[in-house]
């Protein structure tokens, strides 16, 4: 009897007419297939259990402790504090909650920029590369995919260089008469700058309106918008990850039969109508998948923040993942860091479940 169950056998003899067709004992085809299936997936399953499931379980345990990382958390080296870390994170007025709320706000704007940006760019690239008439499609596919396989450090350093105060981006903007912001120094949010230009918000200092707080952060700060640094990081992520998702869309596009497209063309549909009423509905699955992956990925952004800005300027690129690292390794408060990670996990679950509900309703 294997660990993973055998085919159910009836305990008593039943009426032969209603029994299912007699199975051969000791290894029917589906039984062997099942064993073979589990044997082939066993290494991956074991690896996932050992390197993902068990550490997640350990992290959950750590989030219930006050642990400084310098002794064993399993041998009584750390004090059990229950849900104290979560309380400090979500309800106690202090630096931990303040940073967490700022991180949530920043990450929310980041998600709102990266998800649509990546989907649009990747879809556009996939459409371009999918055209029959385009010569050298393989070449373009490689070129568009290249950023995804380039080292994140190399990309970040290059973008830091491009977005310098007097760097390439600002010089190009200067050609159009726009004086670009100091990308990694200016901490004012986009909407705040617009409001200041329109006179709704005071030129300096905090506005008098929107002083009520959500999770400890005033509403006018929630609405301040992404800072130039966050916009720069979002641009970098959209550019770097569009290649991978272009391949997802390409696979989806190539699954659309030519006949459907030709039939629409013969029926007299314009290019835009063909795109809107034929291509997009048939790409629902790819769109959902890419949206799901980008949402999950952008809520966990850490690399770019760590390499480029370390949370600055003035905490406008601080994200929960980066804060988890800072709190754990710099402050020696691994319990707090783990609590941040699990609250982030719950947020991502809420977003993905919500997304699946929305996409299912449309069906």
């Amino acid at each position, binding site marked *: 009897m294997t*660990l*993973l*169950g*055998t*085919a*159910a056998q009836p305990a008593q003899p039943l009426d032969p007419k209603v029994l299912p067709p007699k199975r051969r004992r000791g290894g029917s085809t*589906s039984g062997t297939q*099942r064993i073979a299936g589990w044997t082939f997936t066993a290494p991956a399953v074991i690896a996932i*259990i*050992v390197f993902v*499931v*068990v550490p997640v*379980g*350990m992290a959950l*345990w750590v989030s219930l402790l006050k642990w*400084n*990382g*310098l*002794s*064993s*958390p*399993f*041998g*009584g*080296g750390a004090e059990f504090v229950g849900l104290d870390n979560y309380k400090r994170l979500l309800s106690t007025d*202090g*630096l*931990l909650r303040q*940073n967490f709320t700022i991180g949530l706000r920043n990450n929310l704007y980041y998600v709102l920029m990266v998800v649509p940006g990546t989907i649009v760019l990747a879809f556009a690239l996939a459409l371009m590369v999918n055209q029959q008439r385009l010569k050298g499609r393989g070449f373009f596919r490689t070129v568009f995919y290249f950023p995804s396989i380039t080292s994140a450090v190399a990309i970040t350093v290059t973008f830091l260089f491009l977005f*310098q*105060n*007097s760097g390439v981006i600002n010089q190009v903007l200067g050609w159009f008469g726009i004086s670009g912001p*100091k990308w*990694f*120094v200016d*901490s004012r949010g986009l909407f705040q700058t617009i409001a200041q230009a329109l006179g709704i918000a005071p030129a*300096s*200092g905090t506005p008098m309106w929107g002083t009520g707080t959500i999770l400890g952060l005033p509403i006018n700060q929630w609405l301040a918008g992404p800072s130039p640094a966050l916009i720069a990081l979002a641009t970098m992520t959209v550019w770097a990850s569009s290649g991978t998702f272009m391949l997802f869309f390409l696979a989806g596009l190539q699954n659309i039969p030519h006949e459907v497209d030709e039939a629409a063309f013969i029926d007299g549909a314009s290019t835009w109508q063909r795109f809107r009423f034929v291509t997009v509905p048939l790409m629902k699955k790819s769109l959902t998948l890419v949206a799901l992956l980008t949402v999950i990925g952008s809520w966990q952004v850490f690399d770019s923040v760590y390499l480029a800005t370390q*949370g*600055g*300027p*003035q*905490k406008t690129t601080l994200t929960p993942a980066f804060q988890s690292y*800072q*709190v754990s*390794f*710099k*402050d*020696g*408060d691994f319990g707090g860091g783990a609590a941040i990670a699990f609250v982030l996990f719950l947020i991502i679950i809420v977003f993905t479940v919500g997304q699946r509900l929305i996409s299912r309703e449309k069906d």
Partner: protein
Amino acid sequence: MSRSPRPLRSRHRAAVAASAAALSLVALAACSSDFDDSASPSSSASGGGATLAAPNKEPLTIMIGSSGPAETTTVQDTAKAYTAKTGIKVTVIPAQDLTQQLGQAFSGGNPPDLFYVDPARVGLYAQAGNLYPYGKDVDLTEYDATTLQSYTLNGDVQCVPKESAGVLALSINTAAWDKAGLTDADIPTTWDQLHAVAKKLTTKDQVGLSFGATRDRVGAFMVGAGGWFMNDDNTQVTADSPENTQALTYLQDMLKDGSFAWAADVGAGWGGEAFGMQKAAMTVEGGWLPSVMSSDYPDVKYTTVAMPAGPAGIGTLNFSNCWGVAAKSKNLGGAVDLVKFFESDEQAKAAAKSFGATPARLSLADWTKENFPDQVVYLENLDKSKGPVPVPGFDSVLADFDSKIEGLKTGDPATILQETQTNGEAALTAAQG
């Protein structure tokens, strides 16, 4: 969605069995007694108990956060020399990320015997009972008293500096100085003079003074005004004080009239870069500046002077690293003996010649002055300096302070310091609790 050909009951059974396997793995790991849990931190914190035993034959490991190949080679050579002298085997482990690897080693119960410790982390390690305070086993008169303060907790000296502590000093671009028509008599010795000189040196392309927006530079001005984040024995947070407000207001005035700018505002990553790229005529940096300037910006001619005196006199910050000895070392006597060997004349001089780490012991101070004249200015005024705050968990508070002073030009110094005070008190309570 139930399209599987397997009957529901066996799938259910399989799921239960798989999750039972996973949970049992977690339970096994949680209840594992592989870790050394004979830790009793109280013994280390209260002074280590009996007098130090003589070195035994147990091998020693050293973990270092090396500044480069020169340092690694030198430490390895010293280790070999010690083995030749005493017969105790010594292994050197250069760490990629010392903080992380050291933390992992401590939590795994198998730490290296000797390691570098940053004064900002010494409180965390001491509190966890990871350090053996060998201050009583060495001649402490050989070390500068101010530097030792950074490493003294609960009255015990936890470790001794591995090189002499360096302070921050003011570096001036001589070409810009001459161009502005300034002479040696104009070298600033007070804050007012610094402000005046910075104004004169500010041009369209170059700001008079620039350094990074961090407590590791602004703190020098806080000390110069007579304030600091903590009181002398690190038992009280003193961030919100009139002295600190005065220091921040002084810097804010300079920001407002354009004679001073943060390094990031002029497009540099730190003060030294702004200075080297000649975007700033003056900067405040430490003993690492000469080697960076000679390798990256060799064309810039400059001179370095002591920090100007504020209302409470000269104020600056000191930076150092110490040799930590693990409380769980199996050869405590050998580890402390090895520290003394590293600090001995021959080895300390070799280290200085190899990678510029000037010796910590005061009896070698004259030798240092002779052989490293460009470091002399960084070794003075130690008694007027403060080291990093050693309270565990203070890093977030200071990071928050750093992010707020980036906006000092339009911000309010009193509010910034009040918020730092509140956060600091919360962190101190959490650390003591």
